[in-house]
């Protein structure tokens, strides 16, 4: 099955599109339904950040293999204003927008690997991975 692995984020509908794409790919990779929901929720949060802070951006999804592990790699890129203080933005309770003060730290808890690179005035790239867990 061929899946379009990039979703342009430029409207609220794109947020829904992105998380549904992530869920579909998660299912194919073999994620447990709980983890499919976790991935979709993380995508929703990050896509919303793109829309609020940068107006638009791109999210891409990739199936990854490492040894005998399988997972999903999600990269979110925008050319927005960037995050002035990432270490502060990663603290629970900090928020600059309409957030609950747990945007990025919350998403980091959902995923196995989470990295934010932001350059002031140039944009932000969020890279996150989740590996298929064995529920036995």
């Amino acid at each position, binding site marked *: 099955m061929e899946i379009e692995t990039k979703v342009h984020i430029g409207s609220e509908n794109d947020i829904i599109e992105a998380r549904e794409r992530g869920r579909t790919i998660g299912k194919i990779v073999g994620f447990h339904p709980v983890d499919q929901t976790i991935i979709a*929720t993380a995508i929703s949060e990050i896509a919303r950040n793109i829309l609020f802070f940068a107006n638009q951006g791109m999210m891409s999804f990739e199936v990854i293999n490492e040894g005998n592990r399988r997972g999903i790699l999600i990269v979110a890129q925008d050319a927005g204003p960037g995050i002035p203080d990432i270490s502060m933005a990663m603290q629970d309770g900090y928020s600059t927008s309409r957030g609950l003060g747990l945007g990025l730290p919350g998403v980091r808890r959902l995923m196995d690997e989470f990295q934010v690179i932001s350059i002031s005035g140039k944009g932000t790239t969020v890279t996150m991975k989740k590996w298929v867990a064995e529920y036995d």
Partner: protein
Amino acid sequence: MEVPILKQSPHLITTIQAALTDADLIRLQDALVEQVGRYRSKGVIIDVTALDVMDSFATRTLRSIAHMIKLRGAETVICGIQPEVAFAMVQLGLTLEGISTALDLEEGLALLNQ
């Protein structure tokens, strides 16, 4: 997408049937807050059984709706949060503290009619 609101006197019942955009959620909020006064409703049930993702915006909006309904003199029950959705919400740090929840519509109605 318009979310239908059913009048089941003295309550309002709304069932979210598909993923909603932020704008849809805000429209639902405005409609509920207005109709609770128009129909002098005592309770509002928001059935989210069909929602497969509850992110921070959706959670915050549902919480706002419940608080506004409370200020308008009625009670809100949110029902049908799916197990995997509940799991993801807790991981993300989202809560519906102070807001009544129920397993499904039947339990939600029972709670309002107590």
